[in-house]
Structures are given as structure tokens and as C-alpha cells.
């Protein structure tokens, strides 16, 4: 039984059909690369799994039982964490505050519980260090560089122990050093039995960490292959449409 | 001794109070060593008026004449003045009955009487009664409510309860139409729009009575609104009767676009207030209350009705 199973997931925005009948499964300890041209529908699919959009049609099953995510917390409560492509950060808060947003660490003083700023700064610093990112937990996100922001978004997924981590182009803005760390992270996640879906345009990265690659073209899935059975060239052809499907 | 007396109106953006100010300044010229300090809220706000009075007390003026927006609250504020030994009087509007001990006297008119006189003009023109629409000022404005009660009491010939009284429904032949009394919030534009709509809606309206000058502030607009009904007004089918006797209102009356005006004498109020305060400051006793009288004008006496 697979951890996540999508059946015929379809999503339309008015006249635009972003996704048409997508089937996808992923098991524990597996990493799936999701590739496709710009506008192919990758982010839309991620958002549906993360409970951000409701699909126009289709089913989502987790461990075999159908789920309906009406809001993002529903997905999180089902053990799904996500790094959004547009990062979804609050510019007016500090890096640490963003990492812990919605899951703040609190201390109790008698009946009153209050935010434990110190603990959050420290824990956030630890997470950034783990990612080898030069991000200062006390900085406002507004003032941070593109890669620092991405580090914040990635750090958020490290707070809980999710079953499935969705990463929508997590390495787009970060530098070589941290890219290696993120790929490392994905390896570690796999090893500890987590499932990962990685959306990326970087072919080498996908081939380094993923077990399987799925290709979307204009909202339909045109391929779903084991990494061992395909090659970067084939995947490129599938993405651009030079190869019809496989 | 030089005296600094404050004359506090309800609002400074109301032409009515300007006349009081002019009277106050005239008294300042006539009285030796008296300064008229005319100060009030820019708009009609209760809290700001009280704040101003408090500041005047802090400042240590030699006498305060106030037209309270909120009588009970002003009563409390004025207690501090009395404690500070500052003579206090009211004008235009008065304090509550139980607070009357606080102020030395009241200079003004009884608002109730304005209503009575407005109603009398209507009754003289329409002895059999008919449909009437009343127009009033701001929400819960005590002076307008008393005028309304005056009108209602007089038209119905009985006591209609606490101000503004109960709407008329056939008493003595008079019925108030639906949607009235119109509330204008002292806005001339709203007043005109309301009157226009009601006149259009109620083809057989007998009388339109307004308790404030706002209806006629905007000369041209009022004339346009009333013009179509001029014949009816002349033939006695319809009456438009408005409180106050500002210059353009008198012109409208003379041109047959109004059937009656009942005016107070704000100039007189401002003028008299200074004399009263001077007397108080000098320790003399004063009359209580002091009524400045009303001007009741109809087309017949339009040239002579105003007290000079």
C-alpha cells in the first residue's frame, strides 16, 4: 500500500486546465522527481496535495484511505510538509518567527503561556546551521537575500516529523553549498523512511536523489519512470515534447 | 478690571451662531474692558465642546456663556467652573432642570415656543388640518426635539409626551406622512434632497415644517425645489414653514417660496450674554431666565417682523 495515491486529479482555473487526470503514487522512503516545462502544472499539483487548492476532480488517498484537505493544516495534520515555490513567508517577521509560524514554542508561567523567543531563535539557528545557510534568525525576512529566504522555507519543514515532504524548487535560489545540503537532507529523509516529492528544473539534482521521475506536460502526466531506466536526455525530450510519452 | 468672557456655541460652522458672535463683538465694543472670546467646536461634537470648556476653566477666563450640546455632561463640567469661582451662564440651550443651580441664568428662547409658533402659522393656513411632514436637525438634538414637541403639541392640541413627542396620526385632523420626520444632521444638502423627495412623493401634502434653517440655506437649490409648488403655496393648498429668519430666508419668504418663518434672535443672545457676564463678574445679581423673544414672520409682515 502506497503512502500517497492520486487518482485522476484535475484542476481548472476558469478556462485554463492546469491539471488533467493525474495519477501518482509514492511509497515510504521513496523520492519522486516531478519535472515539466514552466506552466506544466507542477506547483498546482503540489498545492493540491498540500491542501492549498481543492482539486476540481479526482481523489487523494493516504495510506489507502481517501482524504479531503480543505485547508493547509489538514494536510499538515496528515503528515505532509511543503516548501512552496513562492516560499509563502511573512516579510514583516523575523526568520525565526517565520520558521515557527503557526507552531510557536511556548513557555508556561502558571496558567499563562507565552512565546519562548529564545528557544525559537536557538532552534531556528540550529536548523539554518544544519542547512549550512548564512541566515540570521533575528533578521526580518524583508531584508534577506533570495537564498536566505529559501532556507527559511526549507527549515520550516524540519519542525515536525512528516511522512511526506513536498519540495517545490527548493534549490532554485540557493547556492552550491546549500544545494548539497538540501540534497543531503533528501537522502537522510529517504533513509529514515520519509517520502519526498521534489519539483526541480535541475536535471542533475533529480537524478542524484530521486528514485523515480514523473514528467508533466501541459497538465497531463506523460511519463513515470525509474531513474535507473531513463536518462537525462530522455527526460529532457519528454519535458519539451520532443518525445511524445514514455 | 479687564474681563475675558468666553462665548461657547455648539458649533462654529453654523451661520446661526455667527450672529451671536457678531452680537458678542458688538457688546465688546460697547463695554469698557470686556473681551469677547468666541470659541467652540468646529463641528457639532459633544466631547469637544466639553473639552473646550474645561480648557477655558484651566485658562481662568472671567466668565463663561455656553450653549450646551450635551446638557448633563456640560453640567458636570461647569461645576468645576463654579468651584474655580468663574461665573457661568447658558445661552441658546439650557442645562437640565436639576442642574439649573449651577448656571446663573439662561439667555435665549424656549425652543418649545418656536415649535408652537411654527404650528400656529400652519393651523392658521389650514384650519382643517391635513398631512404634514416635519424636518429636524441632528440625531437626539435636544433643541430640535423640543421644537418638534412644540409643533406636535400645538397641532394636536394635547400633550404628546416627552420631546420629540409622539407622531401625529389624525389628532385634530393632522397626520404625519410615512418617512417623516426627516433627519438632516444639519446638512443643507440632505435637507434639500429630503424635502424634494417628500414633496414629489406626497402630492397631497398640506404642510412641510422644518425646525431649522438648513432647509433654506442653499438659496438657489431651495428656490428650485420650491418653485414647482409656488402656485399651490399661494392658493393655500400647501404650506412650507421653516424656523429661523436669516437674510436669504426672508428673501424667500418675500418671493412667495415660504409661508412663514419663526426666528430667534441670536445676535441679541450674544450681545446680552456679555452684559450678563459683566454683571456677574462684578457681583451683581441677574434675572433668570432672560428670554430674547421670537420673530414670527409671514408674507404679510415680512418687512416689519424682524426686531431691530
Amino acid at each position: 500500500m502506497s503512502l500517497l495515491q492520486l487518482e485522476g486529479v484535475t484542476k481548472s482555473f476558469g478556462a485554463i486546465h492546469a491539471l488533467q487526470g493525474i495519477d501518482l503514487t509514492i511509497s515510504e522512503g521513496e523520492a519522486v522527481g516531478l519535472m515539466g516545462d514552466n506552466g506544466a502544472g507542477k506547483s498546482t499539483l503540489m498545492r493540491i496535495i498540500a491542501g492549498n487548492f481543492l482539486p476540481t476532480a479526482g481523489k487523494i488517498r493516504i495510506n489507502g484511505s481517501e482524504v479531503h484537505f480543505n485547508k493547509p493544516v489538514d494536510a499538515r495534520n496528515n503528515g505532509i510538509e511543503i516548501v512552496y515555490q513562492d516560499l509563502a513567508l511573512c516579510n514583516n517577521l523575523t526568520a525565526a518567527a517565520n520558521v515557527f509560524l503557526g507552531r510557536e514554542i511556548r513557555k508556561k508561567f502558571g496558567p499563562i503561556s507565552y512565546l519562548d523567543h529564545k528557544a525559537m531563535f536557538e532552534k531556528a539557528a540550529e536548523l539554518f546551521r544544519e542547512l549550512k545557510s548564512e541566515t540570521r534568525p533575528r533578521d526580518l525576512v524583508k531584508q534577506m537575500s533570495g537564498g536566505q529566504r529559501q532556507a527559511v522555507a526549507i527549515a520550516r519543514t524540519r519542525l515536525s516529523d512528516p511522512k511526506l515532504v513536498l519540495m517545490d524548487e527548493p534549490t532554485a535560489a540557493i547556492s552550491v553549498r546549500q544545494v548539497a545540503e538540501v540534497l543531503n537532507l533528501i537522502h537522510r529523509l529517504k533513509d529514515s523512511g520519509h517520502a519526498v516529492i521534489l519539483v526541480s528544473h535541475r536535471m542533475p539534482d533529480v537524478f542524484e536523489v530521486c528514485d523515480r521521475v514523473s514528467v508533466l506536460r501541459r497538465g497531463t502526466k506523460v511519463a513515470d519512470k525509474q531513474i535507473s531506466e531513463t536518462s537525462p536526455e530522455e527526460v529532457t525530450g519528454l519535458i519539451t515534447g520532443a518525445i511524445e510519452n514514455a | 478690571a479687564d474681563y475675558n468672557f468666553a462665548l461657547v456655541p455648539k458649533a462654529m460652522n453654523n451661520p446661526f451662531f455667527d450672529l451671536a458672535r457678531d452680537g458678542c463683538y458688538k457688546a465688546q465694543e460697547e463695554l469698557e474692558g470686556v473681551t469677547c472670546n468666541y470659541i467652540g467646536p468646529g463641528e457639532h461634537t459633544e466631547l469637544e465642546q466639553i473639552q473646550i470648556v474645561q480648557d477655558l476653566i484651566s485658562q481662568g477666563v472671567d466668565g463663561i456663556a455656553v450653549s450646551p450640546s450635551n446638557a448633563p455632561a456640560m453640567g458636570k463640567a461647569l461645576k468645576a467652573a463654579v468651584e474655580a469661582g468663574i461665573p457661568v451662564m447658558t445661552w441658546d440651550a439650557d442645562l437640565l432642570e436639576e442642574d439649573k443651580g449651577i448656571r446663573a441664568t439662561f439667555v435665549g428662547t424656549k425652543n418649545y415656543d418656536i415649535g408652537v409658533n411654527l404650528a400656529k402659522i400652519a393651523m392658521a393656513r389650514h384650519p382643517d388640518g391635513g398631512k404634514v411632514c416635519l424636518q429636524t436637525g441632528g440625531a437626539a438634538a435636544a433643541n430640535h426635539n423640543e421644537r418638534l414637541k412644540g409643533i406636535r403639541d400645538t397641532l394636536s392640541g394635547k400633550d404628546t409626551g416627552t420631546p420629540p413627542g409622539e407622531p401625529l396620526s389624525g389628532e385634530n385632523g393632522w397626520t404625519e406622512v410615512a418617512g417623516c420626520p426627516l433627519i438632516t444632521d444639519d446638512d443643507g444638502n440632505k435637507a434639500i434632497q429630503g424635502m424634494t423627495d417628500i414633496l414629489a412623493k406626497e402630492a397631497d401634502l398640506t404642510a412641510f415644517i422644518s425646525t431649522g434653517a438648513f432647509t433654506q440655506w442653499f438659496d438657489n437649490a431651495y428656490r428650485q425645489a420650491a418653485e414647482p409648488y409656488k402656485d399651490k403655496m399661494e392658493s393655500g393648498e400647501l404650506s412650507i414653514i421653516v424656523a429661523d429668519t436669516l437674510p436669504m430666508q426672508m428673501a424667500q419668504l418675500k418671493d412667495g417660496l415660504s409661508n412663514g418663518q419663526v426666528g430667534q434672535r441670536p445676535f441679541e443672545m450674544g450681545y446680552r450674554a456679555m452684559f450678563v457676564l459683566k454683571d456677574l463678574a462684578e457681583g451683581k445679581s441677574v434675572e433668570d431666565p432672560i428670554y430674547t423673544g421670537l420673530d414670527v414672520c409671514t408674507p404679510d409682515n415680512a418687512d416689519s417682523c424682524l426686531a431691530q
Partner: protein
Amino acid sequence: MTDTTQKSHAEIDESITSRQEMSGLQAALKTQPFWVFIALIAIGVVMSFISDVFLTERNFFNITRNFAFFGIMALGMSAVICTAGIDLSVGSLMGLAGIVTGLVMQAGYGIGFGFIACMGAAAIVGLINGILIAYVRMAPFVVTLGMLAMARSIAMVISNNKMIYDFGPDQELFEWIGGESVFGVPNPVWVLMILTVVFWWVWRYSTWGRWVIAIGGNADAAKLAGIPVERVIVSVYVLCSCCAGLAAFLLVGWFGSVTNALGLTYELNVIAATVIGGANLMGGVVYAFGAPIGAALMELIRNSLLLAGIDALWQQFFVGLFLILAVLLEQIRNRGRS
């Protein structure tokens, strides 16, 4: 094979280029002004059954004239709101512009000078607002709130708190412009109609209009794209003030008199009309037809309640209720779509 792929790409590209999500009419169906317009019609239909006075020419004349002044101001306000600004000073400015006009004409300078003085006063106020907001980067709310107090105070000072109802030699022409009609349509309504069309053109076809919308969407990006953001913002506030000045000119002409209380508290009504007409206070959205439609809705509600004989104490309640309902309609409509 590469060749065929290339060809099919070209085809696809072609289809993408010309793809348009929906037609103009479909797009209109999604806008707030359209749904407010539907609400307008609905109220009209209901009222024509309730009151036989409603559909009379005279009532229409009154309604249209009443909302024309607000509509004109709302057109200017919608430009300001489109830049994510706000102008609270329009009401006070009306008082100032009206008094200035009155004083100039009372002194016998004629209507030409009166008009120039009126618009000049408005433009100066707008300029000060705009400069403080665009160059000094102050919050529009604070600046225009300060101006609200200052403009009213200056109106009080220069009028010496007196009413003006003598407009010199051109009094008749002045009162004709504001108070009379051409072909049965009140002059202020003509002005509103012409301005609406002009604004429609401006938003759709002028560079300036495009820039204003861009600034509302992302002022930083607009700045980076080389748009003279500060200058455009100043011009927007001047425009808004000029619209208010024009409305004051017409209104005083109709009233035949002016006090410095002219326009008191109108700012909220104007902003409400603009917002009802689809403007978004966060900026970036503007519809030329929204302003008159929003103003019309507010006036129609007022008029209808009176004609329907609703108790005066309850009237404001229904004004508020219908205001919310009108906007709700569009909200529910868009709900169903996404």
C-alpha cells in the same frame, strides 16, 4: 524529427499567443461594477412597483443630479485609491474651493476667474497632498487627514465664517451651470457622463493610466521600470482634488449659496462610492464606470427608502444594509467561480 517538433511548437506557441481567457463581456461579468449595476436595476424595478413617483421624470432628474456631484468626486478618488492611497481631504476641499469661488465672484470678477480660482485652489491642495505623499513618503491617510483640518480652517478664515450668496455679475450663468439642464438632463450629469468616458479612455488607452495602475500593483516594480512614480502620484492627487473642486463649483452653482461647511463628511461617502464601484483600497484596481455606479447606488438607496416611507430612524439602517448587500452580491458571484 527535430523538425516536426519545432513545427508543432510553433503551432502551439501561436495558439498560446492568441489565447485569451475570456471575451470582453465575460470579463465584464466578473467585475464588481457590473454586479452593483445589476443591484441598481433590481432596486429600480422593485421601487417602480412600490412607488408610482419613482419612475417620474422629476424624480429621475433629482436622483441623477444628486449623485452627479459624488460621481465626479468618486472618479478622481478612484485614481487615488488605485495607487493604494486615500484622500480624506476632498470634503474639506469642497468647502475651501466653494468659498474661494464665492469670494472671487462676489468681488465681481466674473465666472471665468471664479472657475480658475476654484480649480487653482483645488490644484494647490492636491499638489501639497501629492508632494508630501510622493516625495516626503508620508502616509496618505495622515497627510490628507491633516489637510482635511487645514483646508476647512482656511475656508473658515477666508470666509470669516459667513455665508456667501451673492455671486456678482455672473450669478445667473453660474446658477444655470450648476442648477439647470440641457435636453432634460441636469448639467452636472452631463459633466459626469463626459468625465466618465474620458476616464474610461484614460484607464484603457493612456500611458498615464497604465502607469497609475502599475503603481497600485507594485510601486517598487513601477519605479524600477522607469516610471516617474513620484510625479505620477502627485498628478493623481492633483486630479482628485480638481475633481472635488469641479464638483464644488457645480454644487455651489446649484445651491446658489455657500458656507464653509460645504462638503462636511463627504469624504466617507465619496470613498464608499468608489469602493462600492469596485475600487480596492489595497490599490491596483480601477474601473471608470465604477465611480458613477457606486455613487448612483448610494443615492438610489437614500431616495428609495424615503419614497418607500421607511421610518427616518430606520433609514440609515437600511442604507448600511443595502450597501453591504450590494457588494455581497458580487462577492457571492465570484465565490461560485473559483
